[in-house]
């Protein structure tokens, strides 16, 4: 008898409760391969689609919503192929990325029209309900051409919610919103997720995604770079050497203290007040930096992670695939 544990049963894919499934989808525009052989399954709750600009997020979202057909592979959303199945499309709420809106219409009219085209009864009540959800006054008499970007964005979200869809896809929905509106929208996404809806939100802002929820799909250069729990992916990133710029009075002196303490693996002095350090343990570095500056009575002016932008994250995540 072997002491080895029995092999794990292969995990069923897609998960039985997945409401969005893309299998091996690809799409090109001329010579540009926008999305290449991506397979993803999304379950109810909030899932973030993360990637830098030009990574292929919007193309993937457009395939998932049926706006464009994949050149190969298959898409299944809310019970059908949204490209060809109108009923399946009717179970999706879509917030496209583009700014274009019906400039001459009032917000309520746009949401009402969406309700009419979704064959809803009591169109007016539904439109008001959807605008209430996004906290926009349904009685604004001005046409949308005079709305701020944040107001337009909220109308776009309201029209996507008016028919109470099973799946909601939002392409960079927080663009143009102020911090308070962003918080409100993120709370709304969470509420929708808790109601059992599948909310797929794309973003290129890492900090934003951190607040969306725990599930994340990372796209880089048209390929799936990572998929799963955000904290696990973030922790992978945190374990990589991180470059940080420190600007302080006698920064070189601070750096020398930290090199001696062992919290740095590299240090480049750019000027007496500015150094670029490399660390494997960000938390320890931060702790010791604060302690050293305090004990030496040196004022810290700037501590900027140089690798904490998305491009760096994706370089790391896709590094193994190249």
């Amino acid at each position: 008898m072997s002491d080895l544990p029995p092999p794990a049963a292969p995990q069923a894919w897609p998960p039985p409760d997945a409401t969005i499934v893309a299998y091996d989808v690809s799409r090109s525009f001329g010579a540009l391969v926008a999305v290449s052989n991506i397979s993803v399954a999304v379950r109810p709750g909030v899932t973030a689609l993360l990637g830098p600009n030009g990574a292929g997020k919007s193309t993937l979202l457009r395939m998932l919503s049926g706006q464009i057909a994949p050149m190969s592979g298959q898409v299944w959303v809310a019970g059908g192929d949204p490209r060809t199945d109108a009923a399946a499309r009717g179970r999706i709420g879509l917030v496209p990325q583009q700014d274009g809106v019906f400039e001459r219409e009032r917000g309520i009219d746009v949401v009402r029209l969406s309700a009419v085209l979704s064959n809803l009864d009591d169109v007016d009540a539904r439109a008001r309900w959807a605008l209430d959800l996004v906290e926009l006054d349904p009685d604004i008499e001005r046409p949308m051409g005079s709305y701020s970007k944040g107001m337009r964005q909220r109308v776009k979200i309201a029209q996507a919610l008016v028919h109470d869809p099973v799946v909601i896809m939002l392409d960079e929905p927080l663009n143009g919103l102020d911090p308070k509106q962003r918080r409100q929208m993120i709370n709304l996404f969470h509420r929708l997720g808790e109601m059992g809806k599948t909310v797929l939100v794309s973003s290129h802002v890492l900090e934003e995604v951190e607040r969306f929820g725990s599930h994340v799909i990372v796209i880089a250069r048209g390929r799936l770079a990572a998929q799963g729990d955000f904290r696990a992916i973030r922790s992978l990133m945190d374990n990589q050497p991180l470059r940080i710029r420190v600007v302080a009075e006698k920064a070189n002196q601070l750096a020398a203290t930290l090199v001696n303490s062992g919290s740095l693996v590299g240090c480049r002095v750019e000027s007496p007040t500015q150094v670029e350090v490399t660390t494997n343990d960000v938390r320890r570095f931060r702790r010791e930096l604060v302690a050293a500056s305090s004990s030496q009575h040196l004022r810290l002016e700037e501590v900027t992670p140089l690798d904490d932008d998305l491009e760096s994250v994706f370089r790391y995540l896709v590094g193994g695939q190249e």
Partner: protein
Amino acid sequence: MLALYRLFLRRQVTTGRLLLFGGFGLLGLAVGLAINRSANAGDASEAGVGFVYGFGISLMVPVIALVLSSSSLGELIEDETLVYLWHRPAPRWMLASAAWMASATIALPFTVLPLTASAALASGGDQEVIWASLAATTLAGIGYSGLFVLLGLLFRKSLIWGLIYLVVWELFVSKAGDGAARLSINTYPSSVLSRLTGFELPLADRAMAAGVIVPVVVAIAAVVVASWRLDRIDVA
């Protein structure tokens, strides 16, 4: 359907367009009056028919239909708002039909009424010419509106392509011979104008039934093709 129709209608009525179309109408009336003043009593009716054919069916109706219809679906693509209508579970034919109906709703009164009034002025109130003008310009408006809705969906810068089509095909190539004329919308309402008034017009000798049916069939076929195309289009 009604909600879509209203949306298209509101999008298409702009001050600039109303001024342009109104200007066209006034020009027509002025020319009609000038013809009436200069024509002899005997040939006023023929001059009126010639005016409706040369200015109305060949220029005013197609240009106004082009401006309106090509923008109906075309502008939705250009300003990227088509997705809000396209993504809903409403049938495609409804979208294409609403676009065409809204275009025709504006194009017809802005062409048929001034042209019929102009024909009445030019012909000195000849009843045959008035009714023939009414029928011919209506048919031309229906046909061109349908065709240009489809054009707006198929081509970017459809206004320019439409003008090229009007100048090259409708004004020149189709006048070259009977074969080409059969493939021109202009021929059919012109034939109706000719048959109803008894005045001969160049290459406008189709049967009355063809003159009535073909523009309507063109419009319906254009809506069908536009619906089919909407089903397959990549939406931004």
